């Protein structure tokens, strides 16, 4: 009962505070802007994907119609791959402006294609976007500090402190309920636009609740920290501004210094091959093959694809099956480097996750982008899906190029393998990315 009356009194008291309302209005406007720009960005990405899908389908149909052999069909036809933003992406754009979320690939060596980035305007990425996650992770602590730092000292400076203490039944409860009311108002200003945005985007209820939980948790952390500090002995002698300076220093430490120092530490802890080396290795592997004896290509290819060992005969100096075999071998040569590169990225991400535990703002940001599936991990998943899809393309074309049916027939009749006949209808069964599921679990080992 007394808690309720406390809160009631505080709420009525607040209505009269001009400064408080100004701050709350600004927070509300910022939240509205962040949600609006997030939704607009998500919609742009979604409609881009939709347009790309249409153009991609038309383009491929055009290209395939002109081909008269499977090798050229594979060489000239590109396939769109993409990773659509989740319904929650509007709240946290995360790493989507740095990692690619769309690629067009073909059946050539994948290592030469996958690092191409169709990235955003670098200057805008450098300036940084203003999304809801930024508001929650970086700015929210500042709002809490601005609201709560003079909880006691303002009363002290106004000369009301002793009177207040005398009228309140329990001191702790008074400050706690006053801080709770302030923070609840802040939370409503922050979350209201977000919830509306989540409804518009039809975000899943679970992730919406998760985002709300992260927000409330982060507010709670800074509220308790501020309350604890303002109640401490050190703060009693200090003015409002001095208390706020100390709290700002804490914010500076966890929001700026910890991330920067852990970034340097992570770079030192994880050794990663230079990306340039991967593409150079792959290029040498592929280009050398033209000048090497055919056997040098077939040996490593057959080692990973023994089912074609009886069909490596060459009837001319150029055959598509040999061409794609050395593309595959190029990937195989770069595989160790490429895996090390990806492992390093994952390792860095894991370490960053751990370092984030000492920086609540970083933790909030990581959690939000993980809920929104826009973090590094999501980008890596997309890359793996592209790799698996590329593998599926290879598995689709190899029987056509090597002549699986013809080979069978030849073996049964004990005759020589006939030339592979081209049948445009076979291409209608090409794997499509939009319906593609990661069914090849061994893809990583195969590549």
């Amino acid at each position, binding site marked *: 009962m007394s808690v309720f009356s406390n809160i009631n009194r505080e709420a009525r008291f607040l209505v009269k505070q001009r*400064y408080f309302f100004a701050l709350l209005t*600004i927070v509300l406007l*910022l939240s509205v*802007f962040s949600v609006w*720009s997030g939704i607009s*960005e998500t919609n742009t990405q979604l409609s*881009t994907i939709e*347009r790309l899908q249409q153009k991609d389908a038309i*383009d491929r149909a055009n290209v395939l119609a002109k081909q008269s052999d499977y090798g050229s069909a594979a060489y000239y036809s590109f396939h769109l791959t993409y990773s659509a933003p989740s319904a929650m992406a509007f709240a946290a754009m995360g790493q989507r402006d*740095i990692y690619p979320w769309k690629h067009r690939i073909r059946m050539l060596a994948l290592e*030469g294609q996958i690092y191409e*980035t169709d*990235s955003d*305007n*670098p*200057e*805008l990425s450098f*300036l*940084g*976007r*203003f999304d809801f996650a930024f508001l929650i*992770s970086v*700015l929210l602590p500042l709002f809490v500090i*601005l609201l709560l730092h003079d909880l006691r000292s*303002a009363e002290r*400076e106004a000369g009301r402190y002793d009177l207040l203490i005398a009228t309140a039944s329990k001191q702790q409860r008074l400050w706690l309920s006053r801080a709770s009311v302030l923070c609840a108002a802040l939370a409503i200003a922050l979350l209201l636009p977000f919830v509306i945005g989540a409804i518009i985007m039809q975000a899943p209820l679970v992730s919406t609740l998760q985002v709300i939980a992260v927000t409330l948790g982060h507010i709670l952390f800074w509220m308790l920290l501020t309350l604890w500090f303002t109640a401490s002995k050190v703060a009693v002698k200090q*003015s*409002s*501004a001095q208390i706020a300076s100390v709290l*700002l220093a804490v914010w*500076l430490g966890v*929001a*700026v210094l910890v*991330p*920067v120092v*852990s*970034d*340097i530490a*992570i*770079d030192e802890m994880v050794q990663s091959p*230079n*990306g*340039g080396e991967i*593409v*150079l290795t792959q*290029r*040498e592997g592929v280009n050398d093959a*033209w*000048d090497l004896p055919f056997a040098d290509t077939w040996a490593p290819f057959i080692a990973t694809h023994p089912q074609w060992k009886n069909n490596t005969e060459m009837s*001319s*100096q150029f055959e598509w099956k040999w061409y794609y075999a050395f593309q595959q071998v190029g990937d195989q040569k770069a595989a160790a480097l490429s895996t090390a*590169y990806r492992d*390093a*990225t994952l390792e*860095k*991400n894991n370490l*960053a996750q751990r*370092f*984030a535990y000492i920086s609540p703002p970083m933790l909030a940001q990581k959690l939000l982008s993980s809920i929104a599936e826009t973090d*590094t991990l999501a980008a890596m998943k997309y890359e793996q899906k592209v790799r698996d899809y590329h593998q599926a393309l290879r598995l689709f074309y190899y029987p056509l190029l090597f002549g699986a049916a013809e080979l069978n027939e030849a073996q049964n009749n004990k005759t020589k393998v006939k030339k592979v006949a081209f049948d445009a209808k076979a291409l209608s069964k090409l794997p499509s990315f939009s319906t593609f599921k990661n069914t090849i679990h061994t893809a990583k080992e195969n590549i």
Partner: protein
Amino acid sequence: MSVIQQVTRDEWRFWHRTKLAATIIIIGTLLTLVSGVVNTLEMQHASHEREHLQQSAQAQFLEQPDRHPHRMVHYGHYVFRTPSALSIIEPGVDAFTGTSIFLEGHKQNTAMFADQRQASGMTRFSSLTPSFLLQVLVPLFIILIGYASVTREKEAGTLNIMITQGINVWHLLLGKYFALVSSGLLMLLPLIVAAVWASINGESALITSSFVAGYILYILVWCGIVLAVSAVNQKNSASFAILVSLWIVLCILLPRIGSSSAAAIAPSPSKLEADFAVKAELRKLGDGHDASDPAFEQLKKNLLTKYNVDKVEDLPINFRGTVAQYSENKLTEILNQFAEKRMQEELEQAYIARQFGWLTPTTAIRSFSMLIAGTSLETHHRFLREAEKLRFDFVQSLNKVHQDNLSYEADANRNKNADATKAARVDAANWQVLSEFSFKPDTAQTRLLRSAIYALQLLFWCGLIVLLLRFAVRRIS
């Protein structure tokens, strides 16, 4: 004059006594110093690494064995962008753009391997670059040092005493202003040292001095904001709350809102999407690999008349090489047209974001600093253009070798048998066509001209500060 000096000295004495301000000044100076050193080492490492990679890429190209010239067109070449001298202070977009490009025939690839893609993702908000510290954190430090410079005197009642003693309010404020500016300049000291270092390393003195001047203006603006707010308020706490709110809005919010607005106002289609339009255009050109493509009929006719022969086999040159040259030329025209359009769109977005410099001095100094340091979008675009020029040159030179040094017959029969394939090769000495690539930032004059408008934004802010201070003086007296 002596009054001003007296006030300045008093202010310093006060900071010394209270420790808080002194601590902040020391922390601020140390932070910029450490970041300057760390960044210099990192940039030098990157610079050496990229130079080394560039040389080895060049050597690898030249070491290739005898080949069919078109194989070399597809073998391609890598170019790397070395960072500019001032990037030790202002790395700009460097970490967000790829720093290497693969150059090959018939294609314009995008830059690969941006540093941020391999980073831990921790440095999206803050980074340990001197530019971030100076643009974002130093204003906060100045606020912490100076928010009470006038309100303190008001709360203690000393301001009224001084005024009744006949002290000129302008002198009082200027004295405090100079004290605040001197503390800001202390934190700027590492930047000045780094700028001198860049001058020694070959950056033009005009550039480095304008660079430093820009940052001094920025410090002047923030000191002015802090002093004016402190002068118009009655209480320390009010002055503090207003200044911190201003800092959040000006240093953190507006630049980002600028960037988000630019993306929303002028969305640019992705390169992938533009590529479909490019492909549609290219399809009209015909496939340069296929000399019998009907698109080259006219070219063939012209050549046959020119050399007065009936068949392409009788031409003194290799018609396949001619077609390769012709189609690469046409194709590059189209590619360049689209690439230019894309760069233009990116620049338009950047311009929108930069206009926020009229709303916040932080965006003004950021644009100024990037443009002067040569780490802006414009420089990246120049890198793309120069890489493209190199690509076109070596591809066309190889196509010319294809046309002049390889017979049509040997070329046409190259897939018949192993010997024929060998016969369809040219000597490796022909690979010398590759010219050396070394990327230099824009000239001092270009960079100064480009940044002029952002210098104007900073001056506009200085003017605003003068007005603000006059208003404050009137309020006090």
